[in-house]
């Protein structure tokens, strides 16, 4: 019996230990042990980039809330036939502030902003012994760039939004809105700060991180949106000398083969893996290409013929064979009936969409090299900013500043890549500001079609209402857009956000 008693005591001593009931997570890092080294800082920066991969931001969606790659469905370029994804219902005025797209988009942007704020606060505090100052500045520059990108998406689509620049406690989170001007000033200051410290390029293994060019390009885009043409022009000037050039092939740029192109200034990176780094904007069904995003007839008509003339004027145009003799960008962007859209199965597009056209740009036309099907998440990078865009932004700024002479060459560069004739050869070289403005805007539409920038452009140009009318005129079965004034140009603050935070006030356009 004595032995048993001893045994019993031994067993119980295990329980006496105070440590016995202290168990920490086996899979996550405790808060107090992070942000100590350069490696921590890199991981934290990667965490901000990770937010860009959200479906509702840059990886798009099929059967869910639309991501930014699908924003051409706002306006006249495309028809979002799965209306519940957001743009479709927005266009037919069947959406209110509780629309799921708004809260998902808002939430993802602030998720990224918080990660950037956390990085900025903590990287500054990493002991000098563990990270060099130049490295520190470079990482901070990326955080500024990314914060600006998230805020820009918020400012463009929601206008006045809360401007949060530090890590909050829950009690501090009940913030009111800031004005568009305040947010705008911060975006510009963040982008300038980023442009100052970011390198022109990274070592090959870090390809994909934000560069000086990315910061300047975004700055130009935002100045242009604010109609600050001189600053937009200056920002593009700085980019011109950074070594970017147009990709020789327009079509190849929007495939995985084009991901390292010198035309790309900033892209959100994706890879087809079993982890969560895939995207769905390039996914398609096998019976119909990209069924939820269908190019509109008015977009198809807007591409010139190869002689540089619109179809209404060109003798090369044939209504019976509408893709013949057209700007090559048309057939790089859009499938026509009888086109093969899945090359490995020789599947032919039957024209079985509501608009009769199928989306081609960015959409996969074969299973991946590792055999993953066309409907599964893919590894296509999404280009946020490319050199052709910069050239056309620069052209637009010049036109708006009435410095017309320099604009021609920029447009011609973009056209030359696809063997389209020069502006001077078709339209002449003594064009008025209005004429040249129309040419730049047209060029922008066909060059950047279905890349998620159309609504942004239409807003800047004040042409949203007109785009609704164009869309209605297309008379696509099952699609009847309704323009309802400012509500059709701006997103409402999500209802859930107003409910959670009574200090927020709805955007007046939506009150």
């Amino acid at each position: 019996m004595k032995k048993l008693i001893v045994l019993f005591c031994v067993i119980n001593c295990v329980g006496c230990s105070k440590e016995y009931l202290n168990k920490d997570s086996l899979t996550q890092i405790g808060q107090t042990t992070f942000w100590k080294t350069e490696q921590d800082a890199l991981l934290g920066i990667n965490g901000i980039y990770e937010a860009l991969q959200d479906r509702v931001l840059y990886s798009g969606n099929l059967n869910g809330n639309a991501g930014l790659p699908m924003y051409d469905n706002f306006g006249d370029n495309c028809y979002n036939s799965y209306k519940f994804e957001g743009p479709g219902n927005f266009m037919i005025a069947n959406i209110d502030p509780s629309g799921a797209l708004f809260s998902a988009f808002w939430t993802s942007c602030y998720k990224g902003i918080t990660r950037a704020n956390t990085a900025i606060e903590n990287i500054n505090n990493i002991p000098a012994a563990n990270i060099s100052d130049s490295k520190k500045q470079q990482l901070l520059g990326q955080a500024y760039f990314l914060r600006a990108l998230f805020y820009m998406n918020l400012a463009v689509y929601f206008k006045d939004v809360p401007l949060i620049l530090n890590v909050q406690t829950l009690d501090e989170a009940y913030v009111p809105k800031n004005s568009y001007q305040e947010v705008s000033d911060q975006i510009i200051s963040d982008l300038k700060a980023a442009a100052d410290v970011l390198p022109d390029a990274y070592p090959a293994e870090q390809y994909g991180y934000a560069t000086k060019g990315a910061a300047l390009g975004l700055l130009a885009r935002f100045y242009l949106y604010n109609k600050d043409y001189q600053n937009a022009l200056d920002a593009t000037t700085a980019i011109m000398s950074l070594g970017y050039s147009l990709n020789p092939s327009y079509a190849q740029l929007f495939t995985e083969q084009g991901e390292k192109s010198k035309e790309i200034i900033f892209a959100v990176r994706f890879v087809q893996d079993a982890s969560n780094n895939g995207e769905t904007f390039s996914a398609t069904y096998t019976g119909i290409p990209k069924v939820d995003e269908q190019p509109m007839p008015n977009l198809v008509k807007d591409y010139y013929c190869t002689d540089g003339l619109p179809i209404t004027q060109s003798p090369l145009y044939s209504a019976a064979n509408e893709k013949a003799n057209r700007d090559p960008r048309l057939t790089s962007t859009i499938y026509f009936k009888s086109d093969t859209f899945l090359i490995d199965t020789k599947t032919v597009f039957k024209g079985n969409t509501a608009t009769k056209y199928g989306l081609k740009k960015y959409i996969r036309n074969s299973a991946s090299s590792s055999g993953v099907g066309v409907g599964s998440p893919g590894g296509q990078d999404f280009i946020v900013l490319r050199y052709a865009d910069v050239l056309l932004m620069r052209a637009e700024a010049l036109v708006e500043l009435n410095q017309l002479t320099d604009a021609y060459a920029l447009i011609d560069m973009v056209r030359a890549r696809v063997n389209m004739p020069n502006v001077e050869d078709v339209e002449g070289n003594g064009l008025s500001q209005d004429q040249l403005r129309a040419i730049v805007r047209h060029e922008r539409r066909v060059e950047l079609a279905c890349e998620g920038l159309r609504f942004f452009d239409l807003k800047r140009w004040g042409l949203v209402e007109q785009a609704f009318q164009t869309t209605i005129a297309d008379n696509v079965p099952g699609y009847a857009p309704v323009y309802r004034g400012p509500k059709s140009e701006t997103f409402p603050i999500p209802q859930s956000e107003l409910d959670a935070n009574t200090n927020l006030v709805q955007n007046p356009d939506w009150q």
Partner: protein
Amino acid sequence: MRMSFFQLVKSRLGSFGLLLVCAFLLLTTASAQQNSPQDTVITGKVISSKDGAPLAGVSVTDSRNPAKGVVTDANGLYQIRVNKGVKALQFSHVGYVSSEVAISGKTLVNVTLTAADAALDEVVVVGYGTQKKINQTGSTETVRFDDAVNEPVTNTGQLMYGKFSGVQITQSSGLPGADASSIIIRGVGTFGSTNPLVVIDNIQYDGLEAFNNLAPSDIESISVLKDASASSIYGARGANGVIVVTTKKGKKGSMKVIYNAYTGLQSVTVVPKYLDAVNYAKLKNEHDINANGANAPLRYTDADIQAIADGSNPDQYANTNWAKEILRTAPVQNHFLSFSGGNDKTTYRVSLGYLNQQAVVRGKFKNERFNLSLNLNSQVKDWLNISNVTNMYWSAFKGPAGGADAITGETGIINQFQRSSPTVPAYYSNGEYGIVDGSYQNVNFSFPVTNPLRTGYLGNYRSNDINMADRLGVKVDFTKSLSFETSGSINLNFGNTSNFVPTSATYDWAGNLVGQNLVNTLTKGNNLDYRLLNENILRYSKRFNRDHDLSVLLGHSLIYNKSSVNKGQVSGFPSNSIQEFDGGGVLNPNVSGSAYEVALQSFFSRVNYIFKGKYLFEFNIRRDGSSRFGASNKYGNFPSASAGWRISQERFLSHVKWISDLKIRASWGITGNDNIGNYIFEQTYNTNLDYVLGNDVVVGAVALTSLANPTITWETIKQTDVGLDASLFRNKLSITAGYFKKNSYDLLYTNFPIPSTIGVTNLAAQNAASMVNSGLEFLVNYRGKIAKFNYSIGGSVSKFADNKVTGLGEKGAETISGETIIRIGAPFGAYYGYKVLGIFQTQDEVNNAPVQFGSNKTAPGDFQYADLSGPDGKPDGKIDAYDRTVIGNPFPKWTYNFNASLDYKGFDLNLTFQGVQRIDRLLNDNGQLPMEGDRNNVLAYWIDRWTVDNPSTKLPRLGGPKNSIVSDFYIQDASYLRLKNVELGYSLPASVTKRIGIDLLRFYVGGQNMLTFTKMKNFDPERQRGGATDQLTPLYKIITFGLNVKF
């Protein structure tokens, strides 16, 4: 000792080696007896007072030294060697009143034992022990299972049907290996898991798996601990009630062998009826016109419909009855073998079980289960008892790729066969699976169907779940009143899964490719979960001065649990026949996993005090410490108190002969729920993120993705219970009635809308919500005998008066998830949607009604919804989200059951009915909605939909804009009464079987779910709450033929 024995058992797994082990132990302990010269030998015969027959197995002991004793043989004879000083012998036997007989120098002592009044001796199994039912002050119900009864059930939970009050048992799925029932004791008292704590042979389990996977024939008793008095001894784990299970032990006497077997056929309880192909095509067109206008492109031309009607082109225009193609009759069989016996010192029992069950849908689905149990008990010394219990199961499930997901869920076979278009053939004439019909590439392109027959046979899924539980107990009797028991338990659960998705392709009728999967993928996972438990219990029990019975229990326990999961995946195997890693797969490799550990330390105590055998008091307390909580909240206390008054023992009732026993009792106490997830208290960075850089290289990323709650603590339930136990007419009639009220508070709740501008949407759970449950329970049993006709009937009724959420915490918001709501004042997870006033018959009615969802498409034939509220809390002339309201209660108001068992001249009949009354179900899935989705068929009743020519007031038109949203139209009364079990048996007369050395030979035919009375059509009413319940594997009914042999 434990480990070496354990290893021994392990090495002999699945063989009769276990039996050898037992025999060996028997021999060694038997030889340990000693003689001494001062002994005297006493002999005699023991007979029964009932019929004067000799009694075998009566324990005969020296009354002063109970450890020393013998048992009577088959003729009731005994021989015992005792010390010369011994004055009396103690005779005891189950079912008889123990008797102490003076020796008075005699060497021949014959004894007649009086049959005990069974009811007075009835024992209930409670936490850490047993209690006489008459002395019980808490609310516990115990059901014992007879040796011979072999209910033909596939899992243990089904043994509980019809036997308990206040317990809602629901079988929701008929999938082999996953057909267990949910068990809710006294209503839902938490927003989380409602599984009760399961204690099997003193080992605690999370979840019901270990319980359901016991071999039913191994079960000796199941107790349900319902009130706080009964369950607070389990403290922080007792809030959902406790199920205490004991398995059968060996008994003194010669070896008994039992063999039970049955084989059966399963078929679905209800076959849903869908539209045939012609009507499907017509209604599909009608739907599209209604939805998209008169000039809408139509899926089916008149020629197509003609082709369907005349069957002229069955490849493209078929008429497939998918229910018929998919549902089938499936076999089930079960075998069980046990050996038991023992001598005075040591008893043993070993058993083996085997179950083989296939699914009622076509496909590879099959589950096999192997059971093994070992019970050993040895009184090694007068003061030392060692016991060992081992329970093991191995459950092996096979199916097509996806496993259970291939059958259930959105893309599962069940959902797919219900929605699949009948115009697609099951097979094309070229032998390929039907995927599309001739119309699929029309301008309104439709998606291929997921041919459910193909799904059932595509690829491979295997899973193994192996569970080993072993408890070694060492009990020391210091004195007659004071004992100490220490025990060590290990519960080891190992599971592995293997899922192989082959390369494959689907084709249309002409052989054109429709879809393909170019790479095959193997995913394998394994999990190891082990739980170590050490319990040390001191028991003291003594009677003072005749009137004071005191018993005290003091305990300490330690639990350590670690769980880990590893998963790997790789694609691109050179052949679909290679389905293991290292077989050439090179594409997309991926590994993942998870791990956690939990430690608990507890102190607990129970004090029972009985004064004069009629005033009963009990106090329990448990102090639990858990690693799941932060420094400030490590420990919690869970006390309870109860009292009872046996009125029947009072003098004023002693002359009332028809009252055998009458007691009123009351209890109050606190229990906890620590099933709250791990590490909530600790703020961490999520390391499970990544991004892509360079040449498509994945790099790690870290971010804060949720906010911790450092003050997280237990969920708590305060429960009050009053009850009455009566035993009347010489214990023929027993009645139990009770009332309970459960107040749950500090319930975990997560829906605290926080500004998402903080960058994190996941706020850790807070102890914020509260809810109440109350109810009445009434249980009655009657045992009777008319000549040779024995019968017993019983039944229970439970009324759940009040399941109501009472609080969601400061800033806690209502949670609306699809079709349910968590709202203060409403039942938890009540159905939430619109109220339908009727169906618009004219455009004028539409125009005069409140605007329905701002839609200009509302037309005659559409539902008119009620304008109940608006942004200002008043009806606002608009139908929108503000007009939703609680439209149904997913919990029953009443459950009831009754059972009867009769036996007459070798025949026996057992019946169990189960009923549920006033329960709502939402049925708004495929087939029940007016043709939603691209390829969805509808149930046949939709032929009576509203049309201009058929202005229905019951069904809306097809294709209306808002006829499919959640509304009370889709709520059905799912009340039912079901003959859950029926069994008719015949045992050959003992006089016949004895001649061939058999104690019992019984044949039976049994049935489960054979009869159901319900208003519900097309689907089984016995289903879990929530939506999409018709995506689950349908319930089966089984007819079984069985055999019981005992010798």
